[in-house]
């Protein structure tokens, strides 16, 4: 399998009012293979969504990409002109946002919103053709065709999210970015939608970049998982390894923040302390204050990359296997 998308040394800064800058994403590198589902987990404010937005260059000032490359099909998105990126959006990379409530236009019918996509990307100017295509797409996600004439508020939350997924797939993108697609939904609806996405993935063979903070959900659905803390990917591995054999103490802590449904109810600690303030990054490892395995090195020098058979991690004092 070849790489569909490669991110090399990506850094994203937020310019602050006083002229300084906060580095929200710091030197992040990863790649997504064709047909793979890559998950990115972490707390809020760790830079997950900033990465997702910069992959499509949708980030708005004060955010700016200060360094790095995002390579899709041999081209670097960072250095493209606005027109070129516009061509790429939706046809190569499509995105499903966190709240479908806000990304559908409330005063326009769903049918017309589909038509706008097709017209804008030069697929068709004929309303009848567009309607037929839209009906097909909606049937794929399990929404009856007669609901096309409805306005978004007539849909339930789950249907709205499914309609957005159908729109994202309208131009058969190679990569689908899912930015917390189900956080606002119920568990039953959430599973319905994820199942729908993964059935479609099998059929249409696209890659998935899945962002969430629910690591237990991610371990069920993704092949490879990156764990992000304070702007850095601190560990990346296959989902099986993240589950059974985590190396970084933060991964272990995140995993242990979700009570289990089986076995005995054990006292769980979670992760002590609060997420790092990116304006005051300490010397050494960023996780030092909250880490239960912190040693002297952690307070003086930044950990180097260590590679494993299917990933990497940054830690001076990693957890042992088993």
């Amino acid at each position: 399998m070849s790489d569909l998308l490669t991110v090399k040394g990506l850094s994203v800064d937020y310019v602050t009012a006083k002229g300084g800058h906060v580095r929200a994403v710091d030197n992040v590198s990863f790649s997504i293979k064709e047909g793979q589902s890559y998950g990115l987990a972490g707390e809020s404010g760790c830079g997950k969504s900033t990465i997702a937005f910069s992959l499509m260059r949708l980030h708005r000032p004060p955010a700016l990409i200060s360094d790095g490359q995002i390579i899709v099909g041999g081209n670097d998105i960072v250095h493209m002109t606005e027109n070129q990126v516009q061509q790429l959006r939706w046809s190569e990379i499509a995105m499903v946002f966190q709240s479908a409530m806000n990304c559908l236009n409330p005063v326009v019918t769903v049918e017309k919103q589909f038509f706008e996509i097709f017209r804008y990307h030069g697929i068709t100017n004929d309303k009848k053709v567009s309607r037929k295509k839209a009906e097909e797409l909606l049937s794929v996600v399990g929404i009856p065709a007669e609901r096309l004439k409805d306005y978004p508020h007539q849909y339930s939350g789950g249907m709205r999210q499914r309609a957005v997924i159908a729109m994202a797939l309208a131009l058969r993108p190679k990569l689908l970015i899912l930015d917390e697609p189900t956080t606002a939904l119920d568990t039953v609806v959430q599973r319905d939608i994820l199942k729908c996405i993964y059935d479609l993935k099998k059929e249409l063979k696209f890659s998935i970049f899945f962002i969430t903070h629910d690591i237990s959900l991610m371990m069920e659905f993704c092949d490879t998982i990156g764990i992000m803390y304070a702007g850095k990917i601190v560990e990346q591995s296959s989902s099986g390894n993240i589950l059974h054999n985590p190396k970084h103490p933060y991964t272990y802590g995140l995993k242990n923040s979700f009570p289990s449904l089986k076995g005995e109810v054990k006292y769980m600690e979670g992760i002590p302390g609060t997420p790092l303030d990116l304006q005051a990054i300490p010397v050494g490892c960023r996780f030092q204050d909250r880490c239960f395995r912190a040693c002297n090195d952690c307070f003086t020098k930044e950990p180097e990359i260590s590679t494993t058979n299917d990933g990497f991690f940054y830690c001076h004092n990693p957890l042992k296997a088993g």
Partner: protein
Amino acid sequence: MKEEKQTILSVKNVVMDFKIGGKSLLSKKKTLRALNDITFDLYKGEALAIVGESGCGKSTICRVAMKFYNPTSGTMTFGNNDIHKLKAQELKNYRQKVQMIFQDPFSSLNPLHNIYYHLKRPLKLYHPSDKITTKKKMDEYLTLVGLVPPEEQGSKNPHQLSGGQRQRAYLARILAVGAEVIFADEPTSMLDVSIRLGILNLMNKLKKENYKSFIYITHDIATARYFADRIIVLYAGHMVEWGDVNKVIVNPAHPYTKLLVSAAPDPEREGVVELPVLKDKESEVTVWTPESKGCPFKGRCPVAEERCSKELPQVREVSDGQFIRCFQSSR
């Protein structure tokens, strides 16, 4: 061996109807039955979880208990008094003893005042004393909820605290009022994953060491199992299964509970599971009206039979301390 349990709040056959508008002004108003025959007791020092999908009436229970609405029929009693008939001093006493913690810690604190102010007001109102004692009490409560050092945290304004700290500050305020029963309406769903357990552990501590009672409203059954002692599964305003939390979640008997349990994320599961539910065209919430008949879950139930659409199943005890409303179920 069972300890003597002391009932602190008792809910009996509560029914709550809402009038909902038709399409135009002139069309007839419809009635929506948001809660139907809700009955439970809350014991001292116990946490009772209420789970269900959005729109099933979880928060309506809270609102009825908070006296936002008077129930259409049925009673809620606190101590020996009907909540909805309280007056004057008794009402003040009820307001003191029963408090609520909200989902959004960002809007439940006054942004213009510091944390000390939030604690001082209820103390002045309910436990008047001199300045030094008040200060001592405030520091005690702040330490109890883990906001240390209290001098530093107490003089901060809400915007200087993180979400988890705000939720702690709010708990401190509730304790300062002198609450015995705490209605927690999804208190952790807006917090970061790593912070959630901290709040749950704190509530657990308050429950065990300070004998506070909790009604824990959530849609995350994993945390319900972690924190609560008993659980009520609500579907379209009906209690479909309730009882001991471990029995209900480990051995669910009602088809809807089974669905909820299998939909919860489980990292150890391989691949995508098929949900035990009928595919309905729109997975919308079942609308229940006073005229509706039968079991509310019948439309989505994989094991529904004819009589399910005719009569509401009676309550059955499937095992010691586990009750369901369902004709089916082998046990």
